[in-house]
């Protein structure tokens, strides 16, 4: 049902409707009589009286008794009590800041003028070997003493070429010069 028809129903009688409005009305009701009845019922319902009944006062009292009985049966743990009430973020941040400040101030007081004495304790620990030590065989390099050999000087034989007593004749000299000029073959 359209909102337009609802408005017409509450505002106009059938004979007050325009042609278009009547066309709209005929989409929802069959006859003029239907329109009349529906209008009257709608207006009467709009003037509805609120039901003359109020909740009984004893009901709330009974419910509270039941609630307290249920609460006694199941007492909330300390965690439920602590965390029952939700706090906003800024409230939580403020409590954290306060806790940090208190902790810092308490720690700060301890550091000033602290005179801690130290006692030096010497303690000798005795270690008892419960198991026999393992025998480990290691390849040992044995160095044998060898006297160093005397270094013998290198014998160098220097030979001085001796001049030949035999000279060369003229013919051998010419052959030699020819050989030197022509180059080696």
């Amino acid at each position, binding site marked *: *049902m359209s909102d337009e028809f609802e408005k017409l129903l509450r505002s106009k009688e059938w004979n007050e409707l325009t042609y278009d409005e009547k066309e709209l009305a005929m989409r*929802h*009701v069959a006859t003029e*009589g*239907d329109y009349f*009845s*529906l209008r*009257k*019922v*709608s*207006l*009467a*319902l709009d*003037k*509805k*009286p*609120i*039901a003359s*009944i*109020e*909740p*009984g006062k004893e*009901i*709330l009292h*009974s*419910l*509270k008794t*039941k*609630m*307290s009985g*249920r*609460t006694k049966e*199941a007492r*909330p743990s300390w965690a*439920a009590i602590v965390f*029952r*009430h*939700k*706090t*906003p973020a*800024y*409230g939580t941040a403020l409590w954290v800041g306060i806790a940090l400040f208190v902790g810092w101030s308490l720690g700060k007081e301890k550091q000033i003028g602290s005179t801690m004495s130290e006692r030096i304790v010497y303690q000798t620990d005795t270690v008892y070997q419960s198991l026999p030590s393992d025998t480990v065989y290691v390849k040992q390099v044995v160095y044998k003493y060898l006297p160093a050999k005397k270094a013998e000087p290198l014998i160098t034989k220097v030979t001085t070429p001796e001049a030949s007593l035999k000279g060369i004749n003229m013919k051998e000299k010419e052959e030699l010069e020819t050989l030197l000029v022509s180059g080696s073959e």
Partner: protein
Amino acid sequence: MFGKNIAALTDEELMSRIQSGDEGAMTELYGRYSKQMVRYFYRMLWQDQNKAQDFLHDLFVRLIERPELFDVSRKFSTWIYSVAHNMCKNEYRKVSFRNNAQSFVQFETSVNEKITEEMDQKYLQQAIARAMESWEEDDRSLFVFRQELEMTFVEIGGVLGIPEGTAKSRWFYLRKQLADSFRDYKILLKAI
């Protein structure tokens, strides 16, 4: 120190506190919903005041004893109306039609005797109660949610599990049925 005022808490937050055993939260929630729920039960249960009070008490006892039944993913108002609606449906199944038909017949006789008289609000309310007898439980609840509690069609759809458009159509259909029944008995309504 930094907690919210209990009156400023949402319905869902109050339910969460009730689960922890907070009596103040239960009192606040009762204050918010008790009037609407007792009027709903009054309309749905044949305008029986005693029955309406009993059902109101039972509804909140369920809430206290089994708070874990509340589905946190749903809106609380939708959930509590759904529970109330189901309680009424169960009651209809328990009470036999014969018991209700007797009161129906008596009313029928009185209407016929005054068939030519103009109807005032009192007779209209009685006529509505008579018409509701013939409706299904969902239609009865829809009518009461809309007429008595002035819920939106979106809220009604959430409780009954139907789309908003369907709730609107059903509401128009129920009013049309009322109008047809008035015309059939030729009861003249007082001119507005």
